[in-house]
């Protein structure tokens, strides 16, 4: 079943160097999956979901399939080696208000589902690992977005 998050908390989640933004990053496994998925679906985007069954999870769609608008926050573009176009990461502004003090890392685990996220048929699921911003990071970031 893989490492539990509790175990992982002691060892920080591995991030792909330089792939992310100040607020959101990718694990190597997630970056590799994005390359595979782009082959199938074309350029991709993330929208972080809120609650219920398959929720509180990043949803990955063909870029533009989910229409973002004035009620969404753009947390950044994830640069992935091997992909021409970076992968945008979005969240609804109301949800972001409760999330903004945490740094997010997109990881991937074995799983089933769901919603309309494109990775589900591959038997895996994107998952968010979170950590609190350090005081120093927060000082730099708090006025942005």
């Amino acid at each position, binding site marked *: *079943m*893989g490492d*539990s*998050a*509790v175990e*992982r*908390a002691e060892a920080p989640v591995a991030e792909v160097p330089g792939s992310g933004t100040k607020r959101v990053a990718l694990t190597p496994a997630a970056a590799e999956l994005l390359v595979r998925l782009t082959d199938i679906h074309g350029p991709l985007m993330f*929208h*972080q*979901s*809120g*609650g*219920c*069954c*398959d*929720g*509180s*999870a990043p*949803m990955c*769609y063909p870029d533009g*399939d*989910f*229409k973002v608008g004035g009620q969404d926050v753009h947390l950044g573009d994830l640069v992935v080696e091997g992909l021409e176009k970076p992968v945008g990461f979005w969240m*609804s502004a*109301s*949800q972001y208000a*409760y*999330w903004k003090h*945490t740094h997010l890392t997109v990881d991937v*685990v*074995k*799983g*089933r*589902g*769901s*919603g*309309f*996220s*494109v990775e*589900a*048929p591959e038997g895996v*699921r994107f*998952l*968010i*690992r*979170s*950590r*609190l911003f350090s005081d120093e990071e927060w000082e730099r970031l708090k006025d942005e977005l």
Partner: protein
Amino acid sequence: MAKYANPGQPDSVVSFKPRYDHFIGGEYVAPAKGQYFENPTPITGQTFTEVARGTAEDVEKALDAAHAAAPAWGKTSAAERANILNKMADRIEANLEKIAIAESWENGKACRETLAADIPLAIDHLRYFAGAVRGQEGGISEIDDNTIAYHFHEPLGVVGQIIPWNFPILMAIWKLAPALAAGNAVVLKPAEQTPASIHVLLETVADLLPPGVVNIVNGFGVEAGKPLASSNRIRKIAFTGETTTGRLIMQYASENLIPVTLELGGKSPNIFFDDVASANDAFYDKALEGFAMFALNQGEVCTCPSRALIQGGIYEEFLQQAVKRTEQITQGHPLDTETMIGAQASNDQFEKILSYIDIGRQEGAKVLTGGEKADLGGELSGGYYIQPTVFEGTNTMRIFQEEIFGPVVSVARFSDYDEAITIANDTLYGLGAGVWSRNGNTAYRAGRDIQAGRVWVNNYHAYPAHAAFGGYKQSGIGRENHKMMLDHYQQTKNMLVSYSENAQGFF
């Protein structure tokens, strides 16, 4: 105590087929692309059947069947449709044990719940809508002496329904019963985590339904759900799930200008006022059980009372006893009738819950009990079990704001009524809430002041038919579980009739 045999063993009450196809036009049809996906039980992690991996071609075929069936089905009398729903209820009741164990095996939930709640509620729901549609009346408005407006209920035609995995049978029936009662033909997609148990139910009722009235296309959201939700051949889409997919479904629906009903997330407050502890009696015991309700269905309920708010005067003592009550929850094999909490529905769900327990700790919330995965040993070691977990913290923490969908409750203290309501309403969601008080005035006022579609007063997690269920705020649109859902599956036809012999006088 009784332990049901695992499906696949000779003495099991249910046997799954090795493979399930789509159910289209009254028969089982292989997927156009010939692909299937494995369906594991979260109880052991082992695959027990495989299921058709539907695509747009299969959805089109199901829509063809539904469109062929809809005109005649829509013209049947309400009595005829009600009779069919009642017969379905009788058949399901006669096969209750089989369907309940099938659902437990597929979803991981304890069978004491499927036997006593999920399936009995599904049966009652069918009977309720059979009655509701028989009792439904149109309207006559007398505009003036010569002019009458008649209002008729007419079915929408063909509708799409996307079902979640947390209550694979009950949520399917919540959607099917009003749609069928109202005279619609349905294309339904079960969740890819729980696609098989609905077919066990279907085996018992399929012959009662005219071919094409109910069509089930299995598969993944992106491959089967999206072609259904974005089709211009449905007149309505109903979805239970989470906010981003809810928005996406509304976006698709906007392209076709069709209505949606959505049942989305929640972060339900469960408020315990001081007077709850004014006596150590049966009611106090009931309130402690009400606290522990966060673990019902492994916490995989949109209305999970995942924020417990306890008033200052009783905080320490009540919380201590509530933690003790939580620790008495029996975790074990879901097919054992003594088991109270079973397995989380999937590995990704399991991982997500652990990631939330992690961020809760990082934010400084205190774990009062639980906080770890549970290894139950033997065949269950491959399953997805989490200890019931009580966090103590503050309402700004992410574990207080996000739906974890696991057996995790976050506890905070409040000093007075106003603070209780402020904290309760400081959330994006408004699906459920609980209020516990011996004072009727306090309970009534709190019930009205909380911005949620369902407020349980001095009880929790009851879902009887005839009590409307649905969300305020970002928790959705529409009210299920009540006759008002018929309106969501019907058009209103107004016939404006003049009984005057004279010209209207314009030309």
